[in-house]
């Protein structure tokens, strides 16, 4: 459905280098991204700010012309065949609006039907589905400029889906939303993904979006892909381990060793300790700990995707 090969985008920036002189400097926003996404896949595309996520998305949708490499979406070349591609894809930019600022939401939808030339019955069927799933009915008559961010985002999602796109690109669709709106957007997307009809590419800074929605995770940094695989594979690769956190009755003795685990944190005057589990089960580790020291409280912590990704970003910091 989506194929890129060594996709690149350079931007030229002029930097002041003297009183009147300016130097040209080339910034590589995307430096050779090779991806292949199959129909029906849900892919999370993440990376720190400035990593090249949005730039990649804009090249996939035909808004930006690549500086090099090949790209193909739905069998079309995005820039030369942009208007044709537009019929096959839906795009939501969390920071931008594709709705008409001064028109009520339902008029924006009606206009989109004409722009995409969708038969009336099909349009009505899709709109009904979105109205049900996203609770649009309360604000369909309100001009877009008066909608709250959460309402507008639900409107944006609907607008992106009314022509029945085969690929949906979402650029930070949950940015700035409250917990309830985020949940609404996520469960809507999950439902959409479950049908298997739509290929979904999602960029976000909220990793909960990814955990909830995407099997596959592509991490990009400094314009390059640094990880492409499942979330579990990411944990394995970066050695993220479950950990055992214990509150002790007495301070931990010096030189204490727990077989099969590594001491990674000591706090509160050696009363609180954290062990990372190196392959032993939590039960074995707990038994070992209880046998050696007296314990007030105990918890087993699952590896946190945020930590893994933070470590991943940090490790690729030097280009």
């Amino acid at each position, binding site marked *: 459905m989506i194929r890129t090969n060594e996709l690149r985008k350079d931007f030229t920036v002029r930097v002041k280098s003297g009183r009147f002189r300016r130097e040209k400097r080339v910034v590589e926003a995307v430096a050779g991204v090779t991806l292949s996404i199959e129909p029906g896949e849900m892919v999370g595309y993440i990376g720190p700010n400035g990593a090249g996520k949005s730039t990649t998305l*804009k090249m996939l949708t035909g808004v*930006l*012309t690549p500086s090099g490499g090949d790209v193909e979406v739905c069998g079309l070349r995005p820039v030369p065949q942009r208007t044709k591609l537009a019929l*096959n894809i839906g795009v939501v930019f969390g*920071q931008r609006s594709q709705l008409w600022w001064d028109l009520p939401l339902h008029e924006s939808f009606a*206009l989109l039907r004409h*722009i*995409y030339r969708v038969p009336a019955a099909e349009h009505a069927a899709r709109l009904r589905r979105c109205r049900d799933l996203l609770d649009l009915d309360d604000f369909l008559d309100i001009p877009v400029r008066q909608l709250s961010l959460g309402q507008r985002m639900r409107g944006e999602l609907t607008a992106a889906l009314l022509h029945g796109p085969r690929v949906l690109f979402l650029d930070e669709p949950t940015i700035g939303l409250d917990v309830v709106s985020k949940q609404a957007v996520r469960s809507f997307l999950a439902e959409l993904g479950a049908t298997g009809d739509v290929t979904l590419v999602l960029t976000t800074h909220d990793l909960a979006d990814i955990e909830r929605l995407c099997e596959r995770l592509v991490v990009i940094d400094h314009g390059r892909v640094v990880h492409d695989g499942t979330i579990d594979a990411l944990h394995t690769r970066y050695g993220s381990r479950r950990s055992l956190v214990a509150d002790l009755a007495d301070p931990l003795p010096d030189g204490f060793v727990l077989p099969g685990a590594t001491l990674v944190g000591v706090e509160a005057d050696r009363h609180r300790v954290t062990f990372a589990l190196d392959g032993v089960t939590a039960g074995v580790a707990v038994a070992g700990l209880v046998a050696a020291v007296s314990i007030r409280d105990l918890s087993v912590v699952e590896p946190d995707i945020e930590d893994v990704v933070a470590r991943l970003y940090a490790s690729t910091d030097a280009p």
Partner: protein
Amino acid sequence: MVGKDASVLTISTVGPLRGSVTTFGALVGSGFRRYTTYRQATIAGTFTNIVFGYLRCYVLLAVAAGTVGGRPGGYAPDQLVTYVWLGQGLLSVVMLWGWAELAERIRTGDVAADLLRPVAPLTAYLAADLGRAAHGMLTRFIPPVVVGALCFPMRMPTRWQTVPLFLVSVLIAVVVSFGCRYLVNATAYWLQDARGPILLWTLGAGVLGGLYFPLRLLPESVAVTLWLATPLPSILQTPLDVAAERDGPALQLGLVALQLFWAVVLLVLAAVVQKRAERRLVVQGG
């Protein structure tokens, strides 16, 4: 159609031409509809146009009274009244000033959303502008013309073709004005901020388009050069001269033909500029 699988893509079965016309019509309708939401601005703007109409009308009638023969630039006083009041009405129909929507969308990066639609941005903006002009024709054009006709001796058309020719001329004037505004706004693709070019346009278009004074007051060679070498007189002066029957029937028609030439040139130019801009586009921020 109940139970139809809503997720399967189908393109409308109507023919490509009919489809294009429907899409264009819907976009024109949206332009009209968007402006109907700003009622207070419409009323305030119309009021201002009428006030300035009085000022300009008295100034030009005083000029006529002080001119030997009483026909400055070849206009009789009743033709000057037509020139002023139809000009006040047309001002916001052709929208000489105050359109920076495209420049603003380029600056903020929202233009990306325009590029993601299956309609070329130039076509979409033109359609919306025609809708806006239709709204202007109904709300902003009629009141000043009625006030002018009631309070001053206005020239009524004497030829059968004047009214239809005037309406055609207004339509073309809107397209010419749109082409100019689009090009001025499109400088933002290169400059990021089009405020400078827009300011120059605002100054230049008012003076050279025939808003402040009839261009026929200028020496003939200058006026002819302006008409032939720039699209500006085609925006306001031509429809006004057509309505005031300033020239004979042949030249009346000729001026509209010249307008049409400029409309085509500007649209082609705008399409070329848009194409080039898309190749070097940088979408700002996120």
